[in-house]
């Protein structure tokens, strides 16, 4: 989240799209409800009428996978309206704080769904160069937004094809409803008004999921909704510490604190820093805007990497050995290390061991039949979980020949969250400290203690074997926890000034000369000499001058306790908040600086600063302003409509390019379903009563009582065609497998009219599996092994299927 949970209450209009917040994040509705009590409008966009929709002022049905058409049409609506009624928008924000005015390379071309030449599923470097600014270092800006090569005009041209009729023909949304959404949400473009977008996996889990979010970003920037209270792009994270796990790098492409992962080609630390793009040389300074200074905060990344290496390797990390950079594992650029890529490799027999920690891919991964089979290629598998899950029992699954599977499985019983101490980072980036309530049962241990025991043993083995490959990376690793506890790890994560031995005050004090350490620069400041463990703070008073709900003394949030990021965009060039009722930062004074939230850099307002010190507000961008035009993605600088990998249509109704040309397409047991055999749009989701792969909830009788069986949902017309009535046992099937379930026949799904065809959805729950108290087929038996072009997140949300009575 750019903002945080409580801040939702300050919104004037909440659009929930790609999320079913009421069902999957029930507590979020505390704040949605508070906003609505004060008159905020709620818009729910979803293929299915959900419990979220039941509370909405406007419910807009949309065919699954059509976010870019839906949002693109809204962008088109705004761009047209903006020229007619600029007074209804915050044009100062759009021209001065975003790259709308910047001039793009004159060779840029867009033709028939493509942004230049694609070879082997990738845009060529030449093509990507045309997406950049005309002058890549000091780009020109036209604040009148008239230049035909400025972002605004290029975008206007691009989205002019997204008129309401074309959009609704793709999405299946009734046009009057669609226009009502455009009008209602666009009203937040007024100065002082704020609209927020709450999204989740309904947005991301597509072969163009990243571009879906880019669409939201463009919308929010055009409406000046970023950095302001009640605004932002708010990702509702799926599980209680998934924000923390991302921050700490449990993803294949990053090190802690979103530092790039090193590649094989990175011969040394400086090569790595240079290639990563996170260095001072990457700074871009736009010409012709009121602001003239980009802080390019990522230019500090070397300080963070060196401090990280010092935290990991201590005295073994010295200037002379590049701070131990060569100890870090390096990635092969030709390989895909994400979940799908890993299981593809496992299917080919290239991976011998797998450690699943609080993860259950036999239910949670796409194409379950394929992934379960791939697990059989492993020599060993470790499952650390609070329950015996489907992954641990994959060899004993229905239909498997246990005798022919040679994988050795180790189960490590883990403590659950109430049985251990530590911090949990919520969606709003708040790291909140929790204490142990009860001891874990039996031999179960907290993850940290399991990790400590394993690592001590690994170090012992490496120490004893002088010929072990990469030996120093393990033997030199500082591992001096002794009787480990979460508090000492929190301090290590924060980091130290190694010259004094004192805790580092904040990432501003980290250095690239080896005199500081920090396990994660973003979390530097969470534990200080003055205040101790700030995550444990429980200050229940909102000290903000206008009480906008920051509660800045409750726990601590990254970065440096800034509750609303990009908050320097919440004030105008003179430093006056756009919204006087809910200002985020306010009352700048050259002595006392800013009041309110921790500002995104404490610099003076642009109009009060000296030449050369007029800092632009979006400090993490090399150009200091927000990217409406985002040329850093692999699949284009603007979102463009593509069909999902499995589409019910024979063509893309917007262009001749049917699917995302850069999507990751798996090869291992990944049969593709065709619309002639499987005409219905399947989509997977969760219910309130169960959690993720269900292993935590399908073992709890009270929850099983509420949702006892695997079920699927479908509209009444489709059910009648198939002779299915509510409560019938049915089989949903496609080229990859079949799922037995109970039919919930409902008015909440309605057939949609798309490109002259009637489209039916089948909603498939993804909680069940063959282990535990309540068992049933997994929805992911039906989902494909394909992923987003930028992230490879699986396309769980849209696929083809058919249904019959069991």
């Amino acid at each position: 989240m750019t903002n945080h949970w409580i801040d939702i209450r300050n919104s004037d209009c909440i659009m929930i799209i790609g999320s079913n917040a009421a069902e999957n994040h029930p507590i979020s509705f505390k704040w949605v409800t508070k906003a609505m009590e004060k008159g905020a409008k709620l818009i729910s966009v979803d293929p299915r009428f959900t419990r979220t929709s039941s509370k909405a002022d406007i419910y807009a049905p949309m065919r699954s996978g059509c976010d870019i058409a839906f949002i693109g049409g809204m962008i088109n609506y705004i761009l047209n309206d903006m020229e007619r009624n600029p007074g209804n928008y915050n044009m100062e924000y759009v021209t001065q704080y975003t790259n709308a005015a910047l001039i793009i390379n004159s060779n840029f071309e867009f033709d028939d769904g493509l942004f230049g030449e694609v070879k082997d599923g990738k845009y060529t470097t030449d093509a990507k160069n045309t997406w950049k600014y005309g002058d890549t270092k000091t780009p020109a800006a036209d604040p009148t937004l008239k230049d035909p090569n400025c972002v605004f005009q290029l975008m206007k041209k691009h989205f002019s094809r997204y008129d309401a009729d074309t959009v609704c023909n793709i999405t299946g949304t009734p046009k009057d409803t669609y226009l009502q959404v455009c009008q209602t949400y666009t009203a937040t473009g007024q100065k002082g008004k704020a609209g927020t977008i709450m999204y989740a996996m309904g947005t991301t889990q597509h072969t163009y999921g990243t571009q879906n979010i880019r669409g939201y970003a463009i919308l929010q920037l055009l409406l000046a909704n970023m950095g302001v209270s009640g605004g932002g792009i708010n990702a509702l994270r799926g599980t209680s510490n998934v924000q923390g796990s991302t921050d700490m790098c449990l993803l294949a492409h990053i090190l802690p604190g979103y530092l790039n992962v090193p590649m094989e080609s990175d011969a040394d630390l400086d090569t790595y820093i240079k290639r990563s793009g996170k260095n001072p040389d990457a700074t871009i300074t736009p010409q012709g805007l009121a602001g003239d200074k980009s802080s390019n905060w990522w230019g500090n990344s070397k300080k963070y990497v060196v401090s990280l290496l010092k935290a990991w390797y201590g005295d073994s990390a010295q200037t002379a050995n590049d701070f131990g950079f060569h100890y870090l594992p390096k990635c092969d650029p030709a390989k895909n290390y994400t979940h799908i890529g890993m299981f593809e490799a496992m299917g080919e027999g290239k991976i011998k061991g797998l450690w699943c920690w609080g993860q259950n891919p036999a239910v949670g991964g796409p194409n379950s039949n394929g992934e379960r089979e791939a697990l059989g290629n492993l020599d060993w598998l470790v499952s650390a979980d609070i329950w015996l899950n489907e992954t641990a029992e994959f060899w004993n699954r229905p239909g498997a020949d246990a005798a022919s599977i040679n994988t050795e499985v180790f189960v490590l019983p883990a403590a659950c969250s109430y049985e251990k101490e530590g911090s949990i980072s919520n969606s709003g980036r708040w790291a909140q400290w929790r204490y142990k309530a009860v001891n874990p049962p039996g031999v179960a241990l907290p993850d940290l203690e399991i990790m400590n025991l394993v690592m001590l043993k690994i170090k012992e083995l490496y120490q004893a074997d002088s010929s072990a490959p990469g030996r120093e990376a393990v033997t030199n690793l500082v591992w001096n926890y002794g009787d480990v506890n979460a508090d000492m790890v929190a301090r290590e994560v924060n980091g130290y000034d190694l010259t004094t031995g004192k805790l580092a005050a904040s990432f501003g004090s980290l250095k690239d000369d080896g005199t500081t350490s920090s396990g994660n620069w973003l979390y530097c400041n969470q534990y200080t000499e003055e205040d101790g463990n700030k995550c444990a703070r429980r200050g229940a008073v909102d000290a903000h001058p206008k009480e906008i709900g920051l509660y800045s003394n409750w726990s601590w949030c990254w970065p440096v306790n800034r509750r609303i990021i990009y908050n320097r965009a919440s004030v105008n060039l003179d430093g006056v908040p756009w919204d006087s009722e809910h200002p985020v930062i306010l009352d700048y004074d050259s002595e006392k600086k800013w009041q309110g939230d921790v500002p995104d850099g404490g610099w003076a307002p642009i109009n009060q600063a000296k030449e050369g010190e007029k800092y632009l507000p979006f400090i993490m961008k090399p150009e200091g302003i927000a990217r409406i035009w985002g040329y850093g993605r692999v699949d284009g600088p603007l979102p463009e409509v593509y069909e999902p990998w499995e589409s019910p249509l024979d063509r893309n109704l917007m262009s001749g390019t049917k699917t995302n040309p850069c999507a990751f397409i798996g090869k291992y047991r990944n049969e593709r379903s065709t619309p002639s055999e499987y005409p219905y749009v399947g989509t997977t989701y969760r219910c309130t009563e169960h959690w993720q792969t269900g292993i935590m909830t399908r073992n709890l009788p009270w929850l099983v009582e509420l949702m006892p069986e695997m079920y699927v949902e479908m509209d009444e017309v489709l059910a009648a065609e198939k002779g299915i009535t509510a409560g019938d046992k049915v089989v949903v099937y496609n080229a990859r497998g079949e799922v037995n379930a109970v039919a919930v026949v409902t008015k909440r799904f309605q057939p949609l009219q798309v490109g002259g065809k009637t489209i039916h959805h089948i909603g498939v729950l993804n909680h069940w599996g063959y282990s535990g108290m309540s068992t049933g087929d997994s929805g992911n038996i039906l989902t494909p092994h394909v992923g987003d072009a930028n992230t490879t997140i699986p396309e769980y949300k849209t696929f083809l299927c058919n249904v019959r009575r069991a």
Partner: protein
Amino acid sequence: MAKAILYDTTKCTACRACQVACKGWNELPAEVTTNRGTYENPADLSPTTWLKMKFREIEPGGKVRWLFTRRSCMHCTDAGCVKVCPSKALYHHELGFVAYNKDLCTGCGYCIEACPFDVPRSDRNLLTGIAKMDKCTLCTTPGLDRIAEGWEPACVKTCPTNALQYDDRDKLVAEGRKRVDSLRDAGWANANLYGENELGGLHVMYVLDDHPSVYELPVNPQISAATVAWQDAIQPLGWAVGGLTVLGLGLNYMVARANINREKEKKDVAGS
């Protein structure tokens, strides 16, 4: 000072945390259920399910609505169950709720017949042959009494959206009226505060955006004349009058028959 629960249907997301919290606090076991083609489960209130959420899909004017309603004891001021309870197992708590002393229940089942909201449920223990009624006690069950501790009921405590509130009844009536006014201003012409005056005033009141019948709530609920007669005329005369004893036994028989038949019907429905 009477206390009450205010349930605002317009803020309820039917997350059913209340349903689970009720079981958790009151130590009620889970029932074995099946998916009957709906989210709603268990199928009915029971001696081990004192609160359940109802889900209803309607399509007025071609626009889908999904309505959620709480099904539990309404804690009437003019409570039929209290009137007919011969053993005083059911009684009015000093804060106005219908509280219950299970030890005194004889399992006669009169309360089941007398309730205009069809809430009390009873099961006969197959080993002992003893029947006992069960229903929501508004968390005043001896040994599990949250109210005596000054706490709100478990369902209210867990509600994430404040769709459930617990407070002085007067305050909640004012709050409910205000809420109804704002719903009417927003175009919900039939919005109303259900339970403000029904049966002398309920201690569980509902903010509804539409007519009670849309939410399948009894419009103008009444206690039957027989129930009124039972408490106001027959019971006071006492069992000393032999003829009336016979009449009483006869009534007992009839009510018990009706209950048995109704339970059979319900089982038939559940099994279909």
